[in-house]
């Protein structure tokens, strides 16, 4: 039986990276993986709706952290998608029989061990299968506190859920992992990329501009979509920011932890100091969620409260812009 050392993490993608690479002797923490993969982001997409509610994201799109970390650390991965469940399950069985833990993309709707109230149709959840026992698969799901199991039927469903993005049985595992890596260059590249995404994308929906964009829209919610929908829109922003996987404050604390770890590793006081500043911005995000939660609970929308929430977001945007401008100037 393959031994797999499971550590609970906040986010599934950076968590799988951390757990999987450690299995091959490459020590990398979750925040370090998140930072090197430039996971931090902001985007508000009013036209991408799920059940009629506009989308907000605090992180880069699924899969990006993984591919960037592999590229920057020189890890080679084997990755497959499949046309049929039978082939996909056979391929999985073959690889775990060799003692290789396998990462895969799944839909949380079909994961029986997942807290029931979180089981919506979200198709980009990452987990690791590291063995098979009595027909069940042994699972290391990074957001769970211990290892767990899943039966064949549910795993097939989770791997072949249709929708966006469709996993199509996607599975992946490293074929070569360096034991020792100098983190300096990867950290530098990760930070440079994060600053670009937060400050320079020439579209109003993304980065700090995106926060201001959302601020304006929030102010108009009650007038534009009415009380009930305004509450739903707001609730969705809170969930994207604080629900499972974010580590709190929409990944801001996780990225601050990365800056601190990088600062310590590279003996760079400036990085650590920027990390502290970002922690303060994370606290502003938490205050926003707290106030937004109250507005949701009160149910009756009055324009002042939505206006106040919009103003809070504008302040956050300013503070976050300052942090990333400063970060972009740090010499590494």
């Amino acid at each position, binding site marked *: 039986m393959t031994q797999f050392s499971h550590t609970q993490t906040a986010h599934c993608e950076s968590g799988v990276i951390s757990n999987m690479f450690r299995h091959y002797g490459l020590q990398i923490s979750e925040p370090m993986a998140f930072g090197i993969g430039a996971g931090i982001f902001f985007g508000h997409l009013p036209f991408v709706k799920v059940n009629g509610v506009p989308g907000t994201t605090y992180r880069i799109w699924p899969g990006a952290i993984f591919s960037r970390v592999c590229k920057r650390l020189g890890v080679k991965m084997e990755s497959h998608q499949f046309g049929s469940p039978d082939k996909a399950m056979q391929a999985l069985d073959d690889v775990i029989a060799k003692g290789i833990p396998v990462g895969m993309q799944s839909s949380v709707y079909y994961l029986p061990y997942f807290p029931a109230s979180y089981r919506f149709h979200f198709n980009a959840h990452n987990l690791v299968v590291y063995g098979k026992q009595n027909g069940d698969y042994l699972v290391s799901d990074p957001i769970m506190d211990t290892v767990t199991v899943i039966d064949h039927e549910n795993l097939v469903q989770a791997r072949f859920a249709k929708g966006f993005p469709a996993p199509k049985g996607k599975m992946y595992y490293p074929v070569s992992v360096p034991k020792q890596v100098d983190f300096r260059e990867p950290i530098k590249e990760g930070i440079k990329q994060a600053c670009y995404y937060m400050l320079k994308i020439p579209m109003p929906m993304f980065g700090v501009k995106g926060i201001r964009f959302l601020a304006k829209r929030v102010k108009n919610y009650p007038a534009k979509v009415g009380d009930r929908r305004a509450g739903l829109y707001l*609730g969705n922003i809170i969930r994207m920011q604080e629900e499972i996987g974010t580590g709190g404050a929409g990944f801001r604390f996780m990225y601050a932890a990365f800056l601190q770890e990088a600062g310590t590793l590279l003996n760079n006081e400036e990085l650590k100091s920027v990390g502290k500043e970002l922690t303060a911005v994370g606290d502003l995000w938490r205050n926003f969620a707290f106030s937004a939660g109250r507005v949701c609970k009160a149910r009756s929308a009055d324009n002042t409260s939505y206006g106040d929430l919009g103003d809070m977001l504008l302040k956050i945007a300013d503070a976050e812009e300052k942090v990333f401008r400063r970060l972009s100037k740090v010499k590494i």
Partner: protein
Amino acid sequence: MKKEEVPQDGDNLHHGTFKQLFYAVDNSGDYTTAPSVGWEPENVALDQAWEEVERRVAETRVKVEAGEASPIAYYMERTLLDLPLLAVKAGKFQWQVKRHMKPEVFKKLGGSTIARYAEIFGIAAEVLQKGELLPFQRPQ
């Protein structure tokens, strides 16, 4: 956020059986992790999302019972799907699925189409065929 400020608002929807991990700073200002059983604003938002599902399910039930929509519309809501996602899952165009939500079209659907929908909805084909509306139970 300081470690001792990591919220423990246990009045959540998974009864404290699940703890998620938060990043927070300790007394010397260094980052560490701490488990949390939940936080009030997130609980409110998640509760609200489920209430919305309940509302839509109930609303659609009324429509189906009044003969204004087919059971496909009901089960779409009950399975937390929307039209684009259901269409992808069924391998059909959205306009086709919309048609199947009309009671008169639904009555004429073939066995294989019914079976396909039933599988997506996680129910027996006969249940769907007969138009039985199984109750919706939100996670406890």
